[in-house]
């Protein structure tokens, strides 16, 4: 069995009802059903989860690290985007 023929899957686990699914890692599997079973065996052995999502890694599109300066640095000097930038007048209650 040639492992390189099996696609890579990203695994997301919800640890408790009400919480978000969180990325926990990746694994190889021939299809989605097998990916979920593999995720169950690899990532939930110690009661880590109540729900599993798997997504084929090729379906995940990521930002390019080279774009980091253009993407994220402009936000550095825009402190007015934080609600804490604004002074709340005393007359306003319950904020």
């Amino acid at each position, binding site marked *: *069995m040639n*492992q390189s023929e*099996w696609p890579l899957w990203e695994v997301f686990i919800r640890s408790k009802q009400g919480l978000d699914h969180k990325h926990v890692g990746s*694994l*190889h*599997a*021939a299809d989605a*059903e*097998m990916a979920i*079973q*593999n995720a*169950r*065996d*690899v990532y939930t*052995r110690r009661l880590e989860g109540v729900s599993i999502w798997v997504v084929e890694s090729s379906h995940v599109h990521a930002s390019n690290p080279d774009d980091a300066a253009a993407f994220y640095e402009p936000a550095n000097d825009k402190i007015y985007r934080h609600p804490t930038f604004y002074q709340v007048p005393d007359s306003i209650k319950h904020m």
Partner: protein
Amino acid sequence: MQVAPPTTHTPETQTQLFRYVLQLADTSLILAHRLSEWCGHGPILEQDLALANIALDFLGEARSYYQYAAELEGQGRTEDDLAYLRSAVEYRNPLLVEQPNGDFAATIVRQFIYDTFHYHLLQQLQAGPDTQLAAIAEKSVKEAAYHLKWSSEWIIRLGDGTEESRRRVEQAIASLWRYAGELTTPNATEKELQAAGLVPDYAAMLPQMEAHVARVFEEATLPVPQGVFMQKGGKDGRHTEHLGYLLTELQYMQRTYPGLTW
């Protein structure tokens, strides 16, 4: 945890029940050992872990049965005495579970045959009159449900997979199906306990088991074997040559250093 009061039996029934529970214990232990042999040799990391998980499930189940068997016998033997200090002819597991791992397809076929029986047996046992067996079955049936799902999915993938996987799974079915019949053929002990209504009637389980096999094999595009001559004897201590070698490894430490503890 709330502990149900133990069921009381006559001495004769108690002896029969001891034999039956020992049979279940040996079956789980031997299959656990076979599966544990895959540890570090799985075809991929994910399946290596899956096999080890399943091995540990069976080992846990075996311990529960051995503890109960020791209690039923009442001769002061412990679970360790029963597991480590009995010879091959005293072991009561069916022939299927002692068969060597072979290739991955052979391990999957062996597992699928046993899981199909195991899951349906535990479903019956958990509703049975013996409170101890019912408690063990209730805990194990969830594990068994997963095992059955796992091995069924693999039968489908191997059967309806590549030319190579199909050739291998067909070969495994041809060499292992002959051990399936023993699981549901009651020996003298099982007959007596079934007549007393203490353990599940295998005949009543067969339609559901056959339906599951038919469904999985159909999806796997594999023909269900027909008219196979069934081997038996393991449940009465007549084993294939493989069990002795397995026990040699399993029992090595206790045989070489009697009474050794961690």
